């Protein structure tokens, strides 16, 4: 009886750990745990192996700041990627989003956040020193500042643009009308920005 109660407590603990993850709540965590314990061979054991490997081998790339199990990371080590163009992003999630778009074949630099005066996040808290070091490479032609279109993201972009001036061409992502959106439903700020940054047709 005590043993089964203990087992129940372990399952409850796993449910609460999963429920704390982004995108999962208690209900979906219960479903996931039930799935794992009823499919031990196909789901639970491969998951344990993957998580253990991630835990023991996960490293931060010393060049770009991305998380990978290889050092340097797959992107930095890929000889097919151009070393002439560098894309600066705030987080790993942003790097993954750009990789999903399959539109960029250069290398990345992950800052690990954005400057925020109100939260006390200054340049020394971000991966900026290594970016400036990389920017000194004469092979580098362009640096794309792909920080978020938020006040903090753009404050970071302006700061970096100032620091990087004279090293390589500094550009930023365009802002405007998202694909599939209707003007009627767009916010005023984006609409005004899209008008300001219109280009010849």
């Amino acid at each position, binding site marked *: 009886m005590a043993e089964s109660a203990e087992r129940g407590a372990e399952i409850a603990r796993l449910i609460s750990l999963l429920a704390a993850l982004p*995108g999962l709540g208690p209900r979906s965590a219960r479903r996931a745990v039930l799935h794992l314990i009823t499919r031990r061979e196909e789901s639970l054991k491969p998951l344990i192996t993957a998580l253990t490997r991630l835990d023991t081998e996960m490293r931060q790339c010393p060049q770009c700041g991305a998380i990978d199990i290889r050092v340097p990371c797959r992107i930095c080590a890929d000889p097919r990627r151009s070393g002439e163009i560098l894309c600066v992003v705030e987080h790993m999630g942003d790097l993954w989003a750009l990789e999903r778009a399959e539109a960029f074949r250069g290398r990345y630099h992950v800052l690990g956040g954005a400057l925020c005066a*109100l939260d006390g996040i200054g340049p020394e808290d971000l991966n900026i020193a290594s970016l400036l070091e990389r920017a000194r490479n004469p092979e580098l032609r362009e640096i794309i500042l792909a920080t978020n*279109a*938020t*006040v903090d993201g753009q404050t970071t972009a302006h700061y970096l*643009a100032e620091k990087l001036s004279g090293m390589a061409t500094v550009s930023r992502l365009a*802002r405007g009308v998202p694909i599939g959106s209707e003007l009627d439903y767009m916010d*005023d*700020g*984006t609409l005004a920005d899209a008008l300001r940054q219109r280009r010849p047709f």
Partner: protein
Amino acid sequence: MEWRDSGYVLSARRHGESHAVLTLLTERHGRHAGWVRGATAKRMRGVLERGNRVSVLWKARLEEHLGLYMVEMEEAHAARLMDNALALLALDCLAALAGALPDRAASPSLFQSFGESLSRLASPMSAAAALVSFENTLLRELGYGVPPETAAARIIHDGSREDDMRKSLAALDALGSRLLADVYAPYGRTLPPARLRLVEKFRSADSSRL
């Protein structure tokens, strides 16, 4: 309990996965926080950017509760300022300084000064004058005296006179000392880093004109 008001976004901190605790500088309820459901939704993300003016409905069971905010955009200042590095720094500075105001203490004059300052951030000269005016109002609202050095800079600058920036810089030095001594140092705090960086920018803009 519920009320409607207008306010400028000072900060929006994520709460859980898709919600946020929003802090506004409101017209009739001062610096006031509230919880926003679905703050990370596409429709809301652009609204909750610092500096935007929003109309807000606050609801709570008791007055001392955090309460629920329902927010709609009034004026999209953040998007307008995003291409101007100095304006973004000044926006950070204004928001940080507004943090010195006690919670829920109504200050219509500071609200008005915040709005006026946002419209004067295009050039270093007008931004410096706007910061002088805002800090004067802040000190008055907090019950402290205004340094005499700021008197000359209190005139609304038209941004055309050569010595405007000098007056503003002198006034900002005096205001900075007063803010530090009366507002920040008693609580073991220093002036907001954004203010220090902004004044430094004003100084370098002034010296590059010479």
